[in-house]
Structures are given as C-alpha cells and as structure tokens.
C-alpha cells in the first residue's frame, strides 16, 4: 500500500470510517500477528494483543503523525508495548535480558516434514532468547523494520540495538549449530 493512500485511509479512520479501518487491518494484521506470535509463542494471546493494537489505533488514529513514523512502525510500537505489558502481568516472564524456557507448542515430530522440524527447532531457539534480544531480532530480521525504527520502539540507542542483535544471533548460532552445519 502506498504511503499516501495509507495516510488518506488513516484520516478516514480518524473520522470514524470503518471501511478504511478494515483496509488497514487487512494490510497490517499479518505482520503484526507474526511479530506478536513470535514474541509470545501463544496464539490466543497473540490474537488478543493484535486485536487490542487495532482497537487502540481506532481510538487514537487522529494522533498519528506520518512525519514521525510509518504506520507500520507505529502499530508495531503499540503491539510491542502490549507484549511488554503482557510479560509484566505474567509472573513467570519478565522483560529483561534473562532467558526464559521455550514453550512446547505440542508439535509432534512424527507428523512433521524435515522443514517443519527445523522450523520448530528455530522457533524454540528464538523463544528461548531473552525478550529484548528477541524483540530486536524479530523487528530487524523478520519484520523488516530499520535499525532506527527498532531502536525507537525498544527505547534504546542504535548502538545498544546492534549489541542486542549481535548477542541474539550469536546465541542462535550456538543453539542451532547442528542445523546450520547440516
């Protein structure tokens, strides 16, 4: 979607136009859901957070400033903050650099193809990253955000973001060394 079209749609959303809102939801929902899903590794919570992200967009569309950020970045910022809130509410998780245990999504290796098994191992390795490293990696590697956009969302400097990215990739390289060699 062209940025100019998108700005016009956002103005219509600010005026209460549901058709324009639907177009923007359809354009951005998949990317946002992928980010939240990879952050939380929980489909139900991911659905809730994506829904809440768009509801906040609906009520705050008039505050969006296209000169300050792309709409995609703004939506990622809202979704990221909701993920952090979710971590804070969840007693066994915290938004720190400490690693967490990867959740088992119940995948059955016997019914998976080799690609799916590899994808599952990568999922576990990514889920085991500390949250800030995971946020940085997901935004820059999977979501296509620039380093400045990602740094702004995580609220760190670009240098600090690069440090988070390097640590995340180093850790993944260790965790997935067998997969990389094969």
């Amino acid at each position, binding site marked *: 979607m062209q940025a100019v079209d998108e700005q016009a749609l956002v103005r219509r959303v600010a005026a209460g136009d549901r058709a324009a809102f*639907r177009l923007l939801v359809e354009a951005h*929902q998949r990317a946002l859901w992928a980010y939240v899903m990879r952050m939380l590794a929980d489909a139900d919570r991911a659905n809730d957070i994506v829904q809440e992200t768009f509801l906040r967009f609906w009520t705050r569309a008039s505050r969006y400033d296209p000169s300050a950020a792309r709409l995609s970045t703004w939506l990622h910022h809202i979704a990221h903050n909701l993920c952090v809130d979710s971590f804070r509410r969840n007693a066994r998780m915290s938004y720190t650099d400490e690693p967490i245990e990867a959740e088992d999504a119940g995948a059955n290796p016997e019914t998976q193809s080799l690609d799916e098994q590899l994808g599952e191992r990568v999922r576990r390795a990514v889920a085991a990253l500390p949250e800030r490293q995971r946020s940085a990696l997901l935004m820059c590697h999977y979501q296509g955000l620039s380093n400045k956009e990602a740094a702004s969302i995580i609220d760190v400097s670009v240098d600090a973001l690069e440090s988070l990215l390097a640590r995340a990739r180093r850790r993944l390289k260790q965790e997935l060394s067998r997969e990389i060699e094969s």
Partner: protein
Amino acid sequence: MNRDEAKALLDAYGADAEKWPAERRQALALFLDGDDAAADILKEARQLDQVLATYELPGVDLADQILDALPQSGLERLLNWLMPVPASLWWRPAMAAALPLAIGVCIGALNPEFSAYDDVNDWASVEAQLLSLPAGESAGVSWYE
C-alpha cells in the same frame, strides 16, 4: 570500513544487504567485495539467515473479529437494542424501515398539537352549536322548508 566493523555489522544484521543500515550499506558492500577473508564471515551469516528463514507462520485473518470489537456509535447501540443480533437477519431491514413509522406514532401520541381527539372535539362542538341554534339561523335558511 575495516574488518572488525564489517564483522560487527554482519554479526548484528546478517548477510541480507536489505537489512543492513542504509547509511553503511554501500561501504559494507564495497569492503566485502575487496576482502577475501570477509567471505567466511559473510558465509556464516548467510547460513544462520537460511536456518532462521525456516521459522514460518501460518496466515491469519482477524479482520472480522477486530471489526466486531469496535466500540459502537449511539445509533448502532439503539438499533441493536431494538433489533437484537439473534433475530433473523432478513427481517432486520423491515424493522429498520418501520422505525420512522414507530417514531412518528410516538411523537403524535406525546404531542397534544397532533392529537386526533382535537378534531373530534372540534366537530362535536360545532355540531352542538348548530343544534343549539334556532332553525334556519345557522345558515340563514331553514333546513325543513
């Protein structure tokens, strides 16, 4: 750019040039072209990128769910109160079309200026007045002539 800087960038951003910082992309590409030892660093980064690419997710469509969760306007709340969602959808337009009639009846019932009893009372008073007059006086002629 030197090898340490190139390695730091590849360690952070991987081998895909599109993910490198825009302002350092050209310098890094030039350095990698002219440095054979950097090829190993680039290869390592590319191998990790290829493995990370296998982590795919299915598509989702939450649009209807999200639209349904939007806060409703006053008119929508009124319509939903008048015509609850479990009702059959086909007769909702008919109910909506009948809404102006219902509103008109309500206005008419509540506003004494539009009361039908006024006309009835007027006719009754005119009739009583006519009956009370002597014959022929009402229209200047006698009705029984």
